[in-house]
C-alpha cells in the first residue's frame, strides 16, 4: 500500500498523486502519514480509491469527493466532505463546523461529535453522526438524511426543505419551519439501512424524525414572523 508522508511530500503533490490514482480507477489504497492538520487533503478525488489518513486534518478534507473512500483516523477541521457527490468519508474523531455542507451524495460517517452547521444546505448526502451535533445543523437542507445518535444543538433544521433528520437524543430547539414528524415504517427502514451502513449501534425505533412544515416554501405574509 503506497504511503505518502506529509513530512516529506508537499500537499500539492499528495493531492495530485491521489487524484491521478482515482482517475486511473485501479481501486488503489493509500495511507497518508503526518497530516498535522493540513488543509484541503484528499480533495477532488474522482474515482474508486481508498485513502487512510493517520491523524487529524484541517479545513475542507475530502471535499467534492466522488466514488472514493477517505478514512480519517483523527478529527477533521471545518468543511469536511463539503459538496461530496458519492463515496464515503469516515471520521474517527470529531468534525468541526459545516461538515458535509452542500453534499449531494455518498455517506459521511462521523464517529465522534460534529460541531455547528453540520449538513448545512445538504442536497442528497447521507450523514451519520455517532455523537452529538452543534447549533444550526441542517440549515436550509434540501435532500438526504442526517442521523444523529446523540443530541442536537439550537435551531435544528432551520428553513428546512425535504431532508430527513433523525435524532436519538435531545434537540435543544427546532429552527424555523422544522417540526417533529411521525416515524412511519418506511422511515424505520431507511434509518435501519443507514445505521447498518455506518456501523452504528442503535435501534431505529429509538429515534425521532424531524422535517419541514413546508410553510416557508412560498412567501406568505401570515408566516412573516417565522422567517
Amino acid at each position, binding site marked *: 500500500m503506497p504511503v505518502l508522508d506529509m513530512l516529506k511530500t508537499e500537499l500539492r503533490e499528495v493531492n495530485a498523486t491521489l487524484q491521478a490514482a482515482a482517475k486511473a480507477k485501479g481501486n488503489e489504497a493509500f495511507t497518508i502519514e503526518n497530516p498535522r492538520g493540513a488543509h484541503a487533503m484528499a480533495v477532488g478525488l474522482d474515482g474508486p480509491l481508498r485513502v487512510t489518513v493517520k491523524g487529524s486534518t484541517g479545513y475542507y478534507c475530502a471535499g467534492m469527493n466522488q466514488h472514493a473512500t477517505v478514512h480519517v483516523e483523527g478529527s477533521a*477541521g471545518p468543511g469536511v466532505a463539503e459538496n461530496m457527490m458519492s463515496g464515503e468519508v469516515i471520521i474517527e474523531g470529531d468534525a468541526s463546523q459545516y461538515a458535509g455542507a452542500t453534499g449531494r451524495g455518498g455517506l459521511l460517517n462521523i464517529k465522534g461529535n460534529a460541531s455547528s452547521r453540520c449538513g448545512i444546505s445538504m442536497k442528497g448526502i447521507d450523514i451519520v453522526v455517532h455523537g452529538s451535533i452543534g*447549533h444550526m445543523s441542517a440549515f436550509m437542507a434540501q435532500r438526504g438524511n442526517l442521523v444523529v445518535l446523540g443530541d442536537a444543538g439550537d435551531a435544528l433544521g432551520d428553513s428546512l426543505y425535504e431532508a430527513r433528520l433523525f435524532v436519538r437524543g435531545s434537540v435543544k430547539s427546532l429552527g424555523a419551519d422544522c417540526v417533529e414528524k411521525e416515524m412511519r415504517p418506511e422511515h424505520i427502514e431507511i434509518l435501519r439501512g443507514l445505521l447498518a451502513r455506518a456501523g452504528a449501534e442503535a435501534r431505529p425505533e429509538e429515534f425521532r424524525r424531524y422535517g419541514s412544515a413546508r410553510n416557508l416554501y412560498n412567501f406568505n405574509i401570515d408566516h412573516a414572523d417565522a422567517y
Partner: protein
Amino acid sequence: MCGIVGLFLKKDDLRPRLGDMLTDMLITMTDRGPDSAGIAIYGDAAGGLKITVQSDTPEADFAGLDAALSDALGAEVTMRVASTHAVLTLPLEQEAEALAVLEARGLRVMGSGESMEIYKEVGLPKDVAARFGIRAMGGSHGIGHTRMATESAVTTLGAHPFSTAGDQCLVHNGSLSNHNAMRRKLARKGVFTKTENDTEVGAAYISSRIAEGATLGEALEGTLKDLDGFFTFVTGTKTGFGVVRDPVACKPAVMAETEDYVAFASEYRAFADLPGIEAARVWEPEPATVYFWER
C-alpha cells in the same frame, strides 16, 4: 481571519519551553493573519511592577531611560531592552508616576503587571517573534495573535494583545459591531481607550467589569450580553486563562487539554508539535460558553 494561540501550563516542568512552544504555534497561524503579530507572556514575577514600552526610535528613546525614570521616581528602576520594546521594573506603588513620565517622553505603553510582558509589532509572526527573542522566554502561560486587519489601522498599537489593566490582556478573532457605542459608554464611566480598534474596547469592557468587582468569569459572561458582533476572545490574567465565543460562533476555535497544559488555537495545525498532543483531549469550545482555568 486572524489567528489566535494560547498556552496555559498546569505544571512547572514545561515553563522554560513556554516561549518556544508559543512561537511555533504562532508561526503556524501566519497565513490566518500576516499583518502584525503579538504575544503576551506571563513570566516570573520580578518583585515589582513590569511596564512594557515601545518606541519606533528605540536607540534614542531607551538610552538612559532607566536612569531618568529612577531619578524621577526616587527609586531603583531596571530596564531590559528587546528591539523596539523595553521592560522596566520598578516599585509596584509607583505605577501612576512612572506611566506619567513614560507618556511625557512619548513612549507607547503596551501593558504592565507583576508578571505580564507584551511584545507586538507589524510584520510576519516569525520576524516579530525573532526580534524579541520570544523563543527563549519562559513562563506559566501566554497568548498570541496573528492579525488580519479589518476594523482599524495596521500599526503597532493596532496589533493584539490589548492590555487595559494590570496583568490583563486579550486577543480577539472577529469584529465587534457595537464598539463605538460601547467605547462611549466606557468613556462616560472614565474608562478610555488609546486606539480606534474594536478589540481594545472588548479588553476595556472586561477590565472595567473586573474593576467594578466582577470575577473574570462574570466579565466574560457579560461580553455575551453587552458586546455585539463576532468574537472568539482569549484572555489572560496573572493566574488565569479564559476563552469565550459569541453565540453564533462562526470564528474557528479548538482546544486541547492534557495533565500538563491547556492549549487554544484557531486551528488544530497549531497543536501539531505540542508534547503529548496525540493523547490530549481535543474539542471545540461551545458557543456562548465561558471556559476558564486558574493556577
